């Protein structure tokens, strides 16, 4: 907390890179690319997740994400959304590395709909292959403290347990296990997926997360740009509250004005 009190910036570090913003945002599900750009700018995010997909050969000149969300301004974090096996995830990220030239990636090996729950055996397999191949892996996972510890011991650079299913907006359903993961981690822990509104993001940060990753909560809000501003403030609020140390809870009242000196 000292560095905060003496007003040095409160930064966090992953894979040797330092960031000020503790909000990582996805770039999917927006109305169009201009809205994507506006929302991401409003969020203050320094890292954005991106998907890797086949070029549309029938329309090679179509506007591209890079033209609206410049990779020289934002750190691209390629994901493996849609990958349901370790092989698909590894192939996808090797292509991402070649396309972008960076090796910091988000690994997610997902189970089938309707839950898209992290496939932990597939995740372990893919993480091992990627780390062996020199990637720096930020890993989406279950809120399982043992699995989180193993992924860290394998060499993952950030542990990203779900707060709730992708796109559900249910918030951080199991704060006990998220707290357990944070308590025992020596690498950054991010809540990834589940955040639905600002108070959810603040709550995740109050638990002690290093950062929060979200997409739908912003992109599916009625007004994504306003919600992006809300999330920027919420993550800052939750971080500051975590550093400040909340008051204790009590089930009875405690007066906030002095009892002495009342008129009679």
């Amino acid at each position, binding site marked *: 907390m000292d560095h905060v009190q003496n007003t040095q910036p409160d930064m966090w570090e992953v894979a040797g890179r330092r960031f000020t913003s503790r909000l990582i945002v996805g770039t999917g599900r927006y109305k169009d690319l201009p809205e994507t750009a506006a929302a991401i700018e409003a969020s203050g995010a320094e890292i954005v*997740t991106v998907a890797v*997909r086949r070029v549309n050969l029938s329309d090679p*000149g179509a506007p591209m994400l890079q033209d609206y969300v410049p990779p020289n301004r934002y750190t691209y974090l390629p994901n493996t959304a849609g990958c349901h096996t370790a092989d698909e995830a590894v192939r996808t990220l090797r292509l991402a590395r070649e396309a972008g030239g960076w090796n910091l990636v988000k690994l997610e090996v997902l189970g089938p709909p309707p839950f898209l729950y992290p496939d932990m055996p597939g995740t372990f397999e893919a993480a091992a292959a990627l780390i062996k191949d020199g990637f720096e892996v930020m890993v989406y996972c279950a809120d399982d403290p043992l699995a989180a510890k193993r992924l860290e011991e394998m060499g993952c650079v950030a542990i990203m347990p779900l707060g709730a299913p992708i796109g559900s907006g249910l918030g951080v359903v199991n704060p006990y296990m998220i707290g357990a993961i944070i308590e025992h981690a020596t690498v950054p822990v991010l809540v990834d997926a589940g955040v639905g509104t600002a108070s959810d993001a603040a709550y995740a940060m109050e638990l002690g997360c290093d950062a929060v990753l*979200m*997409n739908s909560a912003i992109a599916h809000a009625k007004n994504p740009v306003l919600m992006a501003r809300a999330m920027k403030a919420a993550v800052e609020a939750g971080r500051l509250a975590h550093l400040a140390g909340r008051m204790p809870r009590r089930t009875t009242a405690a007066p906030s004005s002095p009892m002495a000196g009342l008129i009679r």
Partner: protein
Amino acid sequence: MGQTIQIAINGEARGVEPGATIAGLLATLGLDTRKVAVERNAEIVPRSTYASQALSPGDQLEIVHFIGGG
């Protein structure tokens, strides 16, 4: 007047000129080499080798780029 050779790009059958390279193919397709990545028969093709790699009949190419995703 050489006949074309058959390859698959992103799952679609295509005919290309014999001797065509990946660099040539990307140019033909109107793709910016700095914004895409290419996998050939499940192997990454380093960008530096696009010009030197000639396509062979039956090649399976994946040409990808970044799009919005969460």
